[in-house]
């Protein structure tokens, strides 16, 4: 077992392969990788900045939204109040009108009832006069009852 066998060829080839690898890496690979890393770093930084900006804008928008909401709330409150007032007014007006109408209808009905009662009374009196006339005819036994008598009896009944 020759652990320390000298192989100059292997040593020289080590230098050669290392040199080739160094050339390749130093010339083509590492600058590209470092450039890419730099780019990525910049990209990340810009992304972070952008995120911060977006966040700020979001916050602004949020506060704006809050403001708008508050304004809207106030408006809504006002509106509600107004509507309530208006509703109240309308309700009162309607109630008043309805009351008026109702009393009118009541009056009319009363008047009509009065009239109807008067008419009924009139016809009742007429009937009564007729009955009296016919009763008198029956009692007297003759038809002496002319137009004149009828008028008289009617007046009589009316006086009752």
């Amino acid at each position, binding site marked *: *077992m*020759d*652990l320390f066998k000298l192989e100059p060829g*292997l*040593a020289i080839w*080590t230098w050669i392969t*290392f040199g080739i690898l160094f050339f390749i890496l130093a010339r083509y690979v590492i600058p*590209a990788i470092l450039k890419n890393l730099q780019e990525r770093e910049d990209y990340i930084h810009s992304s972070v900045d952008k995120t911060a900006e977006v966040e700020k804008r979001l916050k602004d928008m949020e506060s704006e939204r809050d403001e708008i909401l508050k304004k809207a709330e106030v408006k809504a409150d006002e509106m509600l109040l107004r509507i309530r007032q208006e509703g109240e007014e309308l309700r009162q007006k309607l109630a008043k009108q309805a009351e008026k109408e109702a009393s009118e209808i009541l009056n009319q009905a009363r008047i009509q009832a009065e009239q109807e009662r008067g008419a009924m009374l009139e016809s009742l009196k007429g009937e009564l006069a007729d009955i009296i006339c016919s009763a008198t005819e029956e009692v007297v036994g003759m038809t002496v009852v002319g137009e004149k008598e009828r008028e008289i009896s009617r007046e009589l009944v009316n006086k009752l």
Partner: protein
Amino acid sequence: MGRCKTVLKNVLGKIVPLCLFFFAQPLFAEDNVSSALSSHVLNGHGWDIFPYIPEINLPEHFTVHLLMLFITTALIAIFYLAFSKKQVLKPKKTQIALESLILFVRDDIVYPVMGEERGRKWLPFYSTLFLFLLTANLIGLIPAFKTATGNINVTGALAIMVLILTFVVGFKEIGVKDFFKNLYPSGTGLGIGLFVAFLEFLSIFTKSMVLAIRLFANMFAGHMAILSFLVLIIIVSPFMGFVSVPFAAFTYLLEVLIDVLQALVFTLLSCIFISNASEHE
């Protein structure tokens, strides 16, 4: 409690070493197992892909570890070239994995040691070193592949490269005079100072040598540990498999960690050596 302790002491101190000795003896005596072990770990011309499949004989002057080096280089080059061409802003798994390796080298190795300004210039070198070592280490854990870094020539070549870079960069960035002045400790006598400077000068070489030895020994010993557990099955009895396969599996998993760690350590240490040599004290 005391009884338990004595039993444990006996088991650990006498029985286990005895067993291991008897188990290990045939490993030394039998040429067959030894060569079987060595063929898995050492360099050679034959590439055995799977048991029962006859091994592929590579041409002359072309060895298995060299093949592994080529595969390593090709893997890294293909992956990185393919994915550096079609990079996107929002990466998917593969791109993240490939990028994070280089980012790891940048943020955990090069920038803390060298500083950002110098580190940017040196990043390709260290990321190449890290990726090369990591891939070469990890590829050995796949069956049919071998670890190229388990060969002293490969790690030695890399360590010599680091050594040469230490001198070259040191001379270029701070000058020859200051480079040697850094070695001389301030506030000591001339004799002791020169001695310490000499030791420091030697330690530059020792550090690089240890760099090579460490990586090589880690890779070699890790694979040997896995194989040794498995070879016990041949040596002792087939029933040894119940013990040695879980142990080998455990070692295998440990080896994954060690592979990554050694790649990191090699890169980090070479980074520290080179940047230390090229800085004014």
